[in-house]
């Protein structure tokens, strides 16, 4: 492992931090309740944006809309200046989404789960997977069936994906739930590291973020 990567920016970054993700005029209604209307925001490279709001305020819905999993909305979304609808493939290649349902199959081992997750973007070697698991505190758990892990450990398996993915934008929905104190610290460090290398993070959490990097907040409560 060379040290040459540690200082250079991981993702190409123009001098004025570009706006990666932009939303304009977002409107969403559910069950006759308007969740948000005329919502405008942008997320730049090197930024960590926390979406806040009380339960039911539409945080998860907003994240799913941004990823394209939810299509009942009005408004425009842009990735690197291009409307996402015009070029979904580029957007998806730069996106990593971890939702409420963490996407870990209980019957498979941690390694088998991560092999598949990685392959969806670009395959990783078993050694990479071992390193990723070690970084989230699951060294030695690679070949344990996920059903035999605690919820917090399964969450960590899901988080190992962050280390294996080349994605520039991380969209995380309540990633801190079920994590213990050391898990929380590990995740906070991962977020800070990603952001410092020119990536961007959009996260919803009720947890008080304590990260060594610039943090913006978007509050959905009116």
């Amino acid at each position, binding site marked *: *492992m*060379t*040290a040459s*990567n*540690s200082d250079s920016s*991981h*993702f190409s970054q123009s001098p004025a931090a570009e706006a990666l993700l932009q939303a304009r005029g977002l409107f969403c209604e559910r069950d006759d309740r308007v969740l948000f209307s005329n919502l405008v925001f942008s997320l730049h490279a090197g930024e960590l944006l926390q979406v806040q709001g009380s339960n039911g305020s539409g945080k998860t819905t907003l994240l799913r809309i941004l*990823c*394209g*999993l*939810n*299509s*009942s909305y009005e408004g425009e979304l842009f990735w690197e200046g291009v409307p996402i609808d015009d070029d979904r*493939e580029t957007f*998806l*290649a730069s*996106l990593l*989404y971890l*939702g*409420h*349902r*963490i*996407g*870990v*199959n*209980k*019957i*498979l081992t941690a390694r*088998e789960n991560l*092999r*598949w*997750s990685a*392959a*969806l*973007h*670009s*395959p990783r070697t078993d050694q*990479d997977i071992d*390193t*990723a698991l070690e*970084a989230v505190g699951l060294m030695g758990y690679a070949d344990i069936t996920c059903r035999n892990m605690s919820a917090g450990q399964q969450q960590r398996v899901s988080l190992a994906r962050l*280390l*294996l*993915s*080349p994605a*520039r934008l991380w969209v995380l929905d309540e990633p801190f739930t079920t994590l213990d104190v050391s898990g929380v610290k*590990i995740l906070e*460090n*991962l977020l*800070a*590291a*990603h952001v*410092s*290398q020119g990536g961007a993070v959009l996260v919803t959490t009720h947890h008080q973020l304590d990260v*060594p990097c610039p943090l913006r907040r978007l509050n959905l409560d009116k």
Partner: protein
Amino acid sequence: MSDTVKTTTKIAPQRREPSAQVSTFSAFRATLKRDLLIALKRRNDLLNPLMFFLIVVSLFPLGVTSDPQELTRIAAGAVWVSALLASMLSLDNLFRADYEDGSLEQLLLSPQPLYFMVLAKNISHWLISGLPVVLLSPLLAYMLYLPADAYWTLVLTLLLGTPVLSLFGAIGVALTVGLGSRGLILAVIVLPLTVPVLIIGAKAVTDASLGLPLGMHYALLGALLALSLSLAPLASAAALKISVN
């Protein structure tokens, strides 16, 4: 803390652009492998459709007639009906587990063409639930006194037809994966697509036992296979996107 930062820098290497075809194929293969692995670990997925096929075929001599002269006339249809029912029973496995644990969303958010991802799931599903039915069918047909001339036709028509049943069935599953209890509505969506396969396949086997020409039957089954192979995964992918909403 600085150590952790250094470690994270090294794992995700410089963003390189692998050739699109290599990525798609490896994602296809990885999805296929994963589904087969899951099925191997959950033995029930392998055994249930097969057991069901066996049980339903055995019910015909018990419930309809045990007279060999009459059984031999209904053997073709009985085996085909049983295969259709076994296929429908096994459809539940296709997207349900992935929908519930969040893997389906990950699949839908992959930059790879969804056609190949869904096709990989369809192929693994057929290998687990369709191919065993094809392989077991001669044995069960023997139980129903199927005429000797018809065995090859039975196996070949099932070989062509069971993938079509899986592919069309997947569309119905994709449309209903988000619903709670869906037995009846799944049947209503899937049967109009799969009954033609049953009709053609059973007719082919019956005609084989009578020595009639089979060209048209094989042509139709082949055409249905080509049609379902090229279009069904696209329809399933679109249905999945709606279901996940």
